[in-house]
């Protein structure tokens, strides 16, 4: 009996290994016949089939074409740190010029990236960083301070800088969101004395739970002027609750999320603002920075980086900053499909 259950468990586990185990060989990478060696840039997403990283790739392709470099784009089908290491090792053997990685596991991938550096391959990270000794620059899409301040400023703008508001987060323990909340509260204290944060609710990263929490908040705090959703499923969840309560427009909804998940609510005037960085620009900047590091034109100590068509980007320490988060609203949301 015990042995049977062990076998069942092993079978289930080996099924995952098989699912994640098929590996694509790097494609492309022909040498330029006109003499000088063409640069090969390898771009690693956290997972391949995801809208967010598909949009990163779009921006990356544009930059690579502009630079005349080859771009290899590969990643796990599902988020899988072990598969990320395998892909990096494959690229090292293949001999790419530079690797740009979005790291699923900060520590897990650092050994593989350091091994790449030992072979003379340059490494930058984007979206999610590794340990600082395993890469030369991190292309940072938004600092916690930038996100917190933008959310708070936008909530203040929507409510005329006064009234009650509530936050819906993923969990009360998520470290990145707690960091954002800290900056939201600091900004609130510093700049908006007539606004009051009445409650903060977790939604377990689920849309339906966010909808229930928002429904309760709307009736428990009748003076509520604004719901601020700081995890992506909570933005449409809060919007649906406001719509069902018949309070569209009277209670403003804003949050951090994907334009595609919120388009209908934004157009109906239920959700006023969706905040995120321009994901395509993140891909573009990452490739530009990776190429500059490989060419030696971007070195430690630089204070600014010229990223061509998207402008000059500030550098803080070893972080290249994409700049202020971007606000999607009724006027511009149609132009974005991620």
């Amino acid at each position, binding site marked *: 009996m015990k042995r049977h259950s062990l076998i069942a468990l092993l*079978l289930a586990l080996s099924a995952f290994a098989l699912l994640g185990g098929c590996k694509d060989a790097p494609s492309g990478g022909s040498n330029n016949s006109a003499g000088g060696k063409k640069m090969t840039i390898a771009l690693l997403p956290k997972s391949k089939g995801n809208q967010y990283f598909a949009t990163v790739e779009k921006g990356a392709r544009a930059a690579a074409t502009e630079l005349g470099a080859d771009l290899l784009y590969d990643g796990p089908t*599902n988020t899988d740190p072990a598969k990320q290491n395998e892909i990096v090792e494959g690229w090292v053997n293949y001999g790419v010029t530079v690797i740009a990685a979005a790291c699923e596991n900060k520590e897990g991938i650092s050994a593989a990236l350091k091994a790449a550096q030992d072979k003379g391959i340059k490494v930058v990270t984007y979206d999610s960083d590794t340990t600082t000794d395993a890469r030369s620059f991190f292309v940072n899409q938004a600092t916690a301070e930038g996100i917190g301040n933008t959310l708070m400023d936008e909530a203040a703008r929507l409510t005329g800088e006064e009234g009650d508001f509530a936050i819906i987060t993923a969990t009360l323990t998520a470290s990145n969101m707690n960091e954002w909340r800290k900056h939201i509260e600091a900004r609130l204290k510093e700049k908006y004395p007539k606004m009051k944060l*009445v*409650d903060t609710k977790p939604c377990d990263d689920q*849309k339906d739970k966010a909808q*229930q929490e928002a429904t309760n908040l709307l009736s428990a705090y009748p003076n509520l002027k604004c719901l601020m959703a700081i995890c992506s499923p909570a933005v*449409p969840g809060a919007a649906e609750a406001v719509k069902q309560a018949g309070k569209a427009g009277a209670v403003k909804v804003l949050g951090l999320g994907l334009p595609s998940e919120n388009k209908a609510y934004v157009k109906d005037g239920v959700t006023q603002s969706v905040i995120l960085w321009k994901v395509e620009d993140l891909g573009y900047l990452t490739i530009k920075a990776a190429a500059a590091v490989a060419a030696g034109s971007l070195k430690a100590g630089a204070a600014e980086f010229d990223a061509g068509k998207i402008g000059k980007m500030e550098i803080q320490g070893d972080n290249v900053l994409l700049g202020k988060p971007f606000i999607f609203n009724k006027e511009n949301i149609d132009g974005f499909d991620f």
Partner: protein
Amino acid sequence: MGKYFRELSVAAALVLLLVVLAGIAPAFFELQPLLSRLTAQTPALIVAVGMTLVIICRQIDISVGSQFGVCAVVAGLLAAAGLPLSVVLLASMAAGAAMGALNGWLVAGLGLPSIVVTLATMVTWQEALRLFQQGKFINLPAGVQWFGLAQQRGQLTLIATAVVLLTCAAWAMKNLAAGRHVYAVGTDAEAARLAGINPRGITLGVFILLGALAGLAATLNIVQSPQVDPKAGGGLELKAIAAAVVGGVAVNGGRGNLWGVFVGLLLLATINPALTYLHVEAYWEKAIQGLVILLAVVADGIRSRKGGAK
């Protein structure tokens, strides 16, 4: 009184909580949010009914949240493709029944422990779904929400459906042979077999029924908003098991009452909004729910030590 002591004490706790709310935060009883809250609990109630039967049969199914997620995506994709809701419902229930049948076959057919089997299927369905859907929402066409009815009428339809189903199941467990066989198998499978009952068939049956109910619940969930979240169903197994335990269903099988589970679910589902209305910080929610479950288990322990009635 003695026979229904547990059910009545849970009901008393619920009434006490409602009285406190009526005194301090009467807004709790505003119609629109109240209806929304009750509607949002209908999928959990339906799953809890199926879970109760599985637990009475001395088994457990922790994969039901993953089954619910798969069914929700199946239902969402078919509804998005424009199929009528009756077809969507049948397909979703069939998908759930198939997943339930796999659990049932592994447990009843191969004699594997249900906690291990359903742990494996829980992770398998959950990961397969993540691989397939990559967390992407499914947008539903306009006529799906509330079955195309007005909001309030749609909500009342959902609540009525769940309550009718609960009533039928409670009646069947008491009055039909199949219902009593579930109790018999959960109390003592060998004795049940000697009495001419087929324990394997009953065990397979309760798993299939739970799967089909998860499919029904998933369909009743997707009509509540215009988008399907593939992560819906996460934690649903715990909610259903907790409702059963608080409602007086014995974890080691053979004893339990669906009306008790109903009251247990209502009590647990009232704690979270109550905290919001009483302006208590959300940090307390999980701790209070845990405490309620612990109290229920301790009460069971004391009762069985005293050799109380089954």
